[in-house]
């Protein structure tokens, strides 16, 4: 695979679609969990809000921020695959995201094959280690949010 093919792989249509029309990029009223992070090397910032409902699943998830196409697409995809999951499942999917971005196999016990398959659109990151940080930023912000419950009124 030459450099140009790799660039096309990185910026494949599905990534460009998520970056141009990000899903769930919006504010959320009264989230149960929230966090904000920035990447000091580029000044990008992402905030993630979660609503974990009475059943203990992520009933709503949204993000905001100013970031590159990779970070935006990763955030958008993340909100889609994490909706309806438990925090434990979210952590499992984060581990799979890391494995895929590092070029490893993502097959692991715990199901969620469909979600894992969707994360494979980020597999070109294995050729761009400097951009793994961009894609990881929203995920790490999501993990920070899980550890940061808001005071309920």
């Amino acid at each position, binding site marked *: 695979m*030459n450099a140009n093919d790799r660039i096309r792989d990185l*910026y494949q249509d599905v990534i460009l679609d998520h970056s141009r029309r990000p899903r769930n990029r919006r504010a959320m009223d009264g989230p149960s969990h929230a966090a904000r992070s920035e990447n000091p090397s*580029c*000044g*990008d910032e992402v905030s993630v809000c979660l609503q974990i409902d009475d059943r203990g699943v992520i009933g709503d998830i949204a993000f905001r921020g100013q970031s*590159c196409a990779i970070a935006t697409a990763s955030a958008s995809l993340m909100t889609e695959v994490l909706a309806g999951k438990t925090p434990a499942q979210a952590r499992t999917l984060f581990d799979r995201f890391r494995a895929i971005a590092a070029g490893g196999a993502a097959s692991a016990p715990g199901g969620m094959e469909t979600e894992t398959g969707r994360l494979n659109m980020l597999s070109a990151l294995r050729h761009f280690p400097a*951009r793994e940080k961009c894609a990881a930023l929203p995920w790490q912000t999501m993990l920070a949010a899980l550890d940061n419950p808001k005071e309920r009124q």
Partner: protein
Amino acid sequence: MSVEAIETFPKPSVAAGGGSAPYDVEAVRADFPILDRPVRGRPLVYLDTAASAQKPAQVMDAERSFYAEDYANIHRGLYFLSQRATECYDGARRKVQAFLNAQHEHEIIFTRSATEGINLVASSFGEAFLKDGDEVLITGLEHHSNIVPWQLLRRRKGIVLKVAPVNDRGEVPLEEFTKLLGPRTRLAAFAHVSNALGTVLPVADMIRAAHGAGARVLVDGSQSVVHLGADVQALDCDFFVFSGHKLYGPTGIGVLYGKEALLDAMPPYQGGGDMIAGVTFEKTTFAPLPAKFEAGTPAIAQAVGLGAAVDYVNRLGLGRIRAHETILLDHATSRLAAIKSLSVMGTAPDKASVISFVMDGVHPHDIAQVLDGEGVAIRAGHHCAQPVMARFGVPATARASFGLYNTIAEVDAFVETVERVEALFVQ
């Protein structure tokens, strides 16, 4: 390296050097081994010289032959090699003295970098001359290295940091700068050329205005020595700093120029070997300039390499280098202007060969990534100048900077890849 070679350095005049022969960029490129290296299967197009310049073989050879033939620690007495190494090190200092047209050799202090030079002045000048309520005036175009040392000093000494504003073209209007000079202004510290935007600041007028208000002046010449050169006596600046690695020289070596009387009046920055006249446990007397500010074994080989870089730039002639770079800048500026989604940040009429730009709906990192796929290396980010980014309301820009080895064909390859970025991302 021979002592004779060290002692023959060219005149510092900006217009001198290279004579009137046409600028032969292909011959220049042959001096830079890395330019032959393919990147991602394509010829390297290196457009990040403002971050760090590539090195000519002459610089590498100078360091190598210094290690191979002349190396020992300096100022270590009587044996032959230490004397040779000391001569080489001092010879490099004289080359820098001539390059900056400093009055005295001992006004040239070798540091690690421009950053260390500014920290030295903040610490030592700040210690001797600044007290609670005194003001230091900088500009909105500064690199973090000319902001943070003053903030650290503010914490220690209670100084007030004032910032001259930047206009929409990326200039610091002289009258705005002058307005902020007051009876408590002790020091004005500003870049000669903005690293983020390429703006050339009216430093001669700024220095005159600051001196008129009784302030001392530090000029950050990191970006200017490469394009314009500097005559510190004509400028009459009190301090001037630059980094070797941006001047086609080694990393880990920089220069602080300071006027003799000021440097003499300032306390040492670091303590250690080489900076003392005599030490007892009761009292230490310090060595005279420049040793007072060069504690410990310095970057000897890197200083020798910097001397070779100064020779190299002098041989080509800064005037001819600037003329070549201006052709590249003008060509790139006019071609980029045809790209609808692209805006250039920093449109001052007097610019060094730096173009900062943004594209509607495309993050600078994505621009740089696509360019990298074509072997084109540009910088994307805040350029260690986040206040400049904030002034223009962007988190980051993409920045192409041109050096003495770049060609029109490389500018074209760059612009055509940017056009592909537009086709890929902008709908």
